[in-house]
């Protein structure tokens, strides 16, 4: 049973106003194309969750889709700030943005708890930090054995998780290599899962290497094939991070008018990510293509 859909249909079906949405991916496999489609479809009042709100969340929040942000590190990694988000947090400009803040491990464990149906997850963090004083959801809990104090974080169960994979079959079995971030945990924690991938492959490709499967089709609602969907982030083995874009974003993001113009040109002015890829131009994509570094094969053995 094929779950293959277009990005337009998948976002229309799976992402609703007011939803809690997690687009995960730690520097690697951040699905910008899905974020753009959410902007294009003018979703509103979303609660956006991500360990590291990246340029994509700056774009989405700059475009007005979100009422709240749940995160653990807010920045344009290696470059600077996310100014659209900062304007809303610092000056409520053009409106306030509610925030709910954790540390990295706290966010990861919220997804683990959500994926595992645990009412809380204990971690050794937050001791003598002010973070729990501004986030009352982080609370101390004593070990039932010796009273050792740890901190609990609550489960996070997004309405929708959007994860990008290098490849998936039509049933949604998705394979990822390179950095894994917390995509598996976020997907299992979510009520609905959208898998976007560079390539939809035959089921036999997935079945040849089942240990490579990070997300089983069982929990997946739709599969979208969308090459270069992570740009300016990257897909290991497919294309490099486009650092120029990240550097350029600093200036775009600082200026609300420049940001609006960017959104108009690159999101609202285009029908789909295919148009974006075309507009970006073959030269840019060529410059981001890595050389080959094959994994080698292992033998699973045929046991017949």
């Amino acid at each position: 049973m094929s779950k293959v859909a277009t990005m337009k249909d998948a976002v229309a079906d799976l992402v609703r106003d007011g939803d809690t949405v997690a687009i995960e991916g730690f520097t690697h496999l951040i699905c910008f194309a899905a974020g753009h489609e959410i902007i294009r479809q003018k979703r509103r009042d979303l609660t956006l969750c991500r360990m590291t709100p990246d340029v994509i969340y700056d774009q989405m929040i700059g475009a007005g889709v979100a009422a709240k942000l749940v995160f653990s590190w807010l920045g344009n990694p290696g470059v600077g700030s996310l100014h659209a988000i900062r304007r809303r947090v610092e000056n409520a400009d053009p409106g306030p943005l509610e925030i709910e803040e954790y540390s990295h491990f706290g966010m990861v464990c919220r997804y683990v708890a959500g994926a595992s149906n645990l009412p809380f997850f204990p971690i050794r963090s937050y001791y003598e930090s002010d973070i729990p004083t501004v986030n009352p959801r982080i609370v101390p809990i004593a070990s039932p054995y010796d009273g050792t104090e740890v901190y609990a974080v609550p489960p996070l169960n997004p309405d929708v998780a959007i994860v990008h994979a290098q490849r998936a079959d039509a049933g949604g079995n998705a394979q990822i290599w390179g950095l894994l971030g917390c995509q598996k945990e976020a997907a299992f924690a979510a009520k609905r899962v959208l898998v976007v991938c560079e390539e939809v492959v035959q089921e036999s490709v997935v079945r040849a290497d089942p240990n490579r499967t990070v997300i089983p089709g069982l929990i997946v609602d739709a599969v979208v094939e969308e090459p270069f969907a992570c740009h300016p982030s990257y897909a290991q083995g497919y294309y490099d991070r486009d650092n120029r874009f990240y550097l350029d974003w600093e200036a775009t993001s600082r200026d609300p008018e420049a940001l609006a113009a960017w959104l108009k040109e690159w999101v609202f002015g285009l029908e789909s990510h295919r148009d974006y890829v075309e507009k970006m131009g073959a030269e840019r994509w060529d410059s981001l293509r890595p050389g080959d570094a094959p994994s080698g094969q292992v033998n699973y053995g045929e046991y017949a």
Partner: protein
Amino acid sequence: MTANEDGAGGNRTGERGLGWSKSEMMIVASARQLADGGVCFVGIGLPNIVCNLAKRTVAPQLDLVYESGVFGASPRRLPLSIGDPTLVSGSTAVCSMFELFAFYLQAGLVDVGFLGAAQIDRFGNINTTVIGDYVRPKVRLPGSGGACEIAINAKKVFVIMRQGRRSFVEKLDFRTSPGHSGDREHDRRRGWWGSGPTVVVTDLAEYRFDEATAEMTLARLHPGVTLDEVRENMAWEPTVVPDLAETPPPTDEELRLIREELDPQGVAS
């Protein structure tokens, strides 16, 4: 913290006519702290360059664990970030972030972690969250990321940051990551792996923490820096070790590595 927000980056050769920049001195002095080797937890920004410099100079056996989930990286180019694909290709292991934080960091496998800071107090407590009020901040900073976990779970913590009256403060606007409490007895009873920062390296000087008082203590001045200049760039009157020394200047090889291999575009140095 990003490199930019650390206040790093700058006039690489012209400063003070010494032949190296303040940031280069800070990177070199930090890298030398790693001479004992062990397992380093590498986060975003400067630590990336510091660790890779140490690996090529004082500590070839240094094991680098990247926050993003890579162990045994063998990068073919300078990583643009801790999530750079060049860190993955040719590495010995990749794991999920849950495993990285749980099985490596929280489990006590990490010998040295790094923290940057927008603000630090005399006991090494660190703010990377906000300047001003939390709810209506003057400047919204990145927040903890993994910093709070590093402060608590890495066996040693090194702090690298530029210093000034607005960053070396009497009182933090927000305590993101705990340092020393000021009461050594209390600190010993905390039962964490981490024992608070052990070293702070700035663009001006190097600091240790006093055995008895846990107070940050000026241990070395970088070449060309005066005690008065240090005093002007912090909000409290520093304790100074009796045998205040000068940091050995960067060697030609250290500068060459930074300029030609580790940060050829001068992003951070």
